[in-house]
């Protein structure tokens, strides 16, 4: 398989991947770095650059678009907004997504509000991906973890700067606007930003309007730090995010409101002792409200709304240190979440009562996690990393109606369930001037997610089944191994990575013919069950070549394959996909041409609503010019996505929703 990736990728041009670069690499990407950083070992999606050397295709793009470029992440798309991140081809329950280490639980039973939907690119510096159950302070996971790292200031000499930005996209008339300000003083720093987006329906290739695909989003964020001592400071942070009138054309319902408050307070202490370099402790709270409704849809079998609420408070306390040959990290974290979702169906017959049920029966999740990692440089070029984590996970159904509902299916259901979740991983890294090689292996476990464990008649519009949770499932477990090799020499850099997951007790919904459907028009009922095992293999190759001072070509190819015992191909698996591009830079002008596409999808699973998909390729063009006026600068970027107006759909499009057709965009960023 990897050989085929190599051969194909070598003939395909693709764009420089913005995500495997650190800030430093970015500013000096034409100069070959003489050593590899940790960033090469993980996926790092650089989000907020907006600098002179900004190479992102569209600086004001949504976070979803940024993440989609990562080789490790697929974004499952149900509309224009709030795509669901799949890490290594696995659904969001199998990964841990955090914002600055904070756990947030989505409030939507239908995955319409992943954690990534409650932040903005303006707030973020980067997204860091840890593949597999290894190296994750976020908590027990199967596929890996994704931490969204916020952009924040540093202490300085009383400097003030800011930016004002605006964007317009012709296809869906999306208006993006906002501003950010930052102050850095000797004992105090603060950042604040506001971003607003407003989009109408978009048009697929050929001009077909996709109804119910508009959205509005307001995001406000602030972060402030106070220096309490030479090596100590505290930080307070707040994010408010409010999306309204969000259309989900691939689903039968839209969202009238998705709103989150995310707050934290952190204490950071550096240089505690020669052995302990940092101690940080954070307390956080977040509150998410999500209201699904169908009031915009003219014809529905029955009117309904489905609000959901999720509140989480938590903490973590982390120590970092190093000795002669060791770098270590210890992390204690815990959180408490309460999730509840309900559904009301409105009777259209006078005298008949409205119908009400709890789709998430009031579930409290209590979680405590201890994690430690040590990196041992036992040779000039060799390093061994070992990480272990142990977590106690408890679920409590605290709503009597919810408990009663589930007891229809599980008469002996107990309110409380406690699990122990273990994870262990190690990797061996060899690093020389131009080569990096990493071999890693790991074991991890996870508890079923709230929908998987306790969901009650959750309709999946892709396979058209009602899903019932199963609170009696065991932990899902995985053994993984991964290989990564990177080469960097003169003008050429290349990275080949692959990983394999063997998952035991793989959680997936299977039809139960003895049960009757609830949703009008549903094909049947699926109950979450556990496959004896499933296997997922992923691979990616990235190559870039600096042709000369002005010209750079980049390419990327990736592939995933998943198979479950007794069911065949796992759903929503990426077929062979590629990106390639060439960019030209001269002084402060740059221009890019790129193509991205996918081969025909031949591995699909009709049991989950999938069917074969044809190959596609789209072409994108963009150009940017930076004008500098002393300390100030103005960046203009314009481009065309899907220039040829292809009508296409990908494996990641829910219900095979067509993607956006030709889109001309313009971004303007004024920095002062």
């Amino acid at each position, binding site marked *: 398989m990897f050989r085929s990736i190599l051969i194909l990728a070598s003939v395909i041009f693709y764009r420089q991947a913005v995500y495997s670069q650190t800030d430093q690499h970015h500013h000096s990407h034409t100069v070959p770095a003489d050593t590899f950083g940790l960033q090469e070992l993980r996926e790092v999606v650089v989000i907020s650059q907006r600098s002179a050397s900004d190479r992102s295709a569209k600086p004001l793009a949504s976070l979803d678009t940024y993440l989609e470029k990562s080789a490790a992440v697929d974004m499952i798309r149900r509309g224009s907004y709030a795509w669901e991140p799949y890490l290594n081809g696995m659904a969001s329950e199998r990964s841990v997504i955090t914002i600055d280490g904070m756990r947030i639980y989505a409030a939507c039973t239908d995955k319409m509000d992943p954690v990534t939907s409650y932040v903005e690119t303006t707030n973020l510096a980067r997204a860091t991906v840890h593949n597999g159950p290894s190296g994750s302070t976020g908590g027990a996971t199967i596929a890996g973890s994704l931490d969204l790292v916020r952009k924040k200031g540093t202490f300085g000499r009383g400097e003030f700067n800011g930016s004002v930005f605006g964007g317009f996209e012709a296809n869906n008339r999306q208006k993006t606007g906002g501003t950010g300000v930052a102050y850095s003083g000797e004992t105090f720093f603060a950042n604040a930003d506001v971003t607003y987006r407003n989009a109408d329906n978009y048009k697929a290739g050929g001009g077909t309007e996709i109804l119910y695909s508009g959205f509005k989003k307001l995001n406000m964020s602030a972060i402030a730090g106070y220096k309490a001592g030479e090596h100590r400071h505290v930080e307070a942070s707040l994010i408010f995010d409010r999306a309204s009138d969000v259309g989900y054309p691939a689903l039968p319902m839209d969202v009238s409101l998705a709103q989150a408050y995310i707050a934290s307070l952190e204490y950071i202490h550096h240089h505690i002792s020669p052995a302990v370099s940092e101690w940080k402790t954070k307390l956080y709270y977040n509150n998410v409200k999500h209201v699904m409704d169908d009031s915009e849809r003219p014809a529905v079998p029955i009117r309904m709304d489905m609000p959901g609420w999720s509140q989480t408070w938590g903490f973590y306390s982390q120590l970092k240190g190093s000795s002669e040959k060791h770098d270590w990290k210890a992390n204690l974290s815990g959180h408490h979440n309460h999730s509840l979702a309900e559904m009301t*169906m409105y009777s259209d017959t006078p005298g008949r009562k409205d119908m009400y049920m709890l789709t998430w029966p009031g579930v409290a999740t209590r979680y405590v996690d201890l994690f430690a990692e040590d990196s041992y440089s036992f040779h000039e070029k060799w390093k061994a990393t070992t990480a272990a984590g142990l977590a106690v996970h408890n679920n409590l159904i605290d709503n009597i109606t919810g408990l009663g509902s589930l007891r229809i299916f599980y008469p002996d259901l107990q309110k409380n369930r406690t699990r122990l979740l273990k994870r262990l991983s190690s990797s061996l890294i060899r690093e020389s001037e131009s080569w990096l090689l990493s071999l890693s292996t790991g074991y991890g476990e996870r508890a079923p997610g709230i929908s998987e464990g306790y969901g009650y008649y959750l309709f999946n519009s892709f396979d058209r089944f009602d899903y019932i949770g199963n609170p009696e499932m065991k932990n899902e477990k995985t053994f993984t191994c991964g290989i990564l090799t990177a080469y960097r020499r003169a003008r050429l850099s290349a990275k080949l990575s692959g990983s394999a997951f063997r998952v035991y007790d793989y959680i997936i919904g299977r039809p139960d013919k003895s049960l009757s459907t609830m949703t009008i028009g549903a094909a049947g009922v699926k109950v979450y069950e556990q496959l004896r095992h499933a296997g997922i293999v992923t691979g990616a190759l990235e190559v870039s070549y600096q042709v000369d001072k002005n010209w750079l070509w980049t390419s990327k190819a990736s592939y995933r394959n998943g198979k479950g015992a007794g069911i065949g191909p796992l759903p929503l698996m990426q077929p062979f996909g590629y990106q390639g591009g060439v960019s030209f830079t001269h002084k402060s002008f740059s221009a890019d041409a790129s193509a991205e596409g996918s081969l025909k999808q031949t591995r699909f699973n009709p049991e989950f609503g999938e069917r074969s998909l044809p190959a596609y390729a789209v072409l994108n063009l963009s150009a940017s010019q930076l004008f500098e006026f002393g300390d100030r600068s103005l960046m203009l970027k314009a481009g065309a996505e899907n220039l040829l107006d292809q009508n296409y759909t990908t494996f990641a499009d829910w219900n095979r929703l067509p993607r956006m057709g030709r889109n001309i965009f313009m971004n303007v960023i004024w920095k002062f």
Partner: protein
Amino acid sequence: MKSFKNIICSLSLLTIGFLASCSKDADPVPDELDGLKLVASVENGSHVVDLYSVSGKLATGYNEIFFQVKNPNGSSLSNDTDVSWAPTMKMENTSHSCPASAITPVTGASSLFGGFIIFPMAGDWELSFSHRIDGANYTSTGKVAVQAAPGRIAESFQGTDGQKYVLTMIEPLKPATGSNDMTALLYRMKSMSDFEPVSGYTIKIEPRMPAMGHGSDNNVDLTLQDGIYKGKLSLSMTGDWQINLQVVNEKGDVIKGEPVTESNPESSIYFEIAF
């Protein structure tokens, strides 16, 4: 409220004999009528019978009824006296009765009698009470209004065996989302005025939500246990439910009711629950 619970408990124990456990350390009843409301009074010139129920009303289906008999001197007749009752529905050319329990004294009470009557239809029913004191027979007769219950909770039908039956639902009294205990009583009509409890049958239930067209899962059909038909009813959400019924005799033959299919949205007999 506590005393009322005791009344219900004792009554059920004595009349139907199906509720197994009552609290053994029951407090003495301070007021026999606590928690009850007057429904009507029936008199015969010398005695007055005061009828009570929890709601103060009578409705179609299963009704728990309590009463006191007032002597001419104003005192109450002791509830160890033999009393019988007979409900009658008089129509233009005909009249018929309905299933009624035996009358029993309410435990812990000195003057309160109790029993139940299953009214298959609404309207003015004639209710007569007979008792015998010192060799003299007294009968008090009067009309009581029986209202239509908000939903269908009693079915009268003729089975394929040619017999007439009355089927009524008792529980769930307070339906809730989830699995509910369901109880029902089935009577066969021996004559226009004589009903007997039927044993050995099965009452198959198929709950449906007409507004949505869906059913529910893991229901348990009703079978006779301790003198009452008992089963489990799954109500997966609030709203209006229709409990489609099929009555199956001891040989396994369906004597009334049809399964719900695509072409047949409901059985010819069903109960209704709304909550």
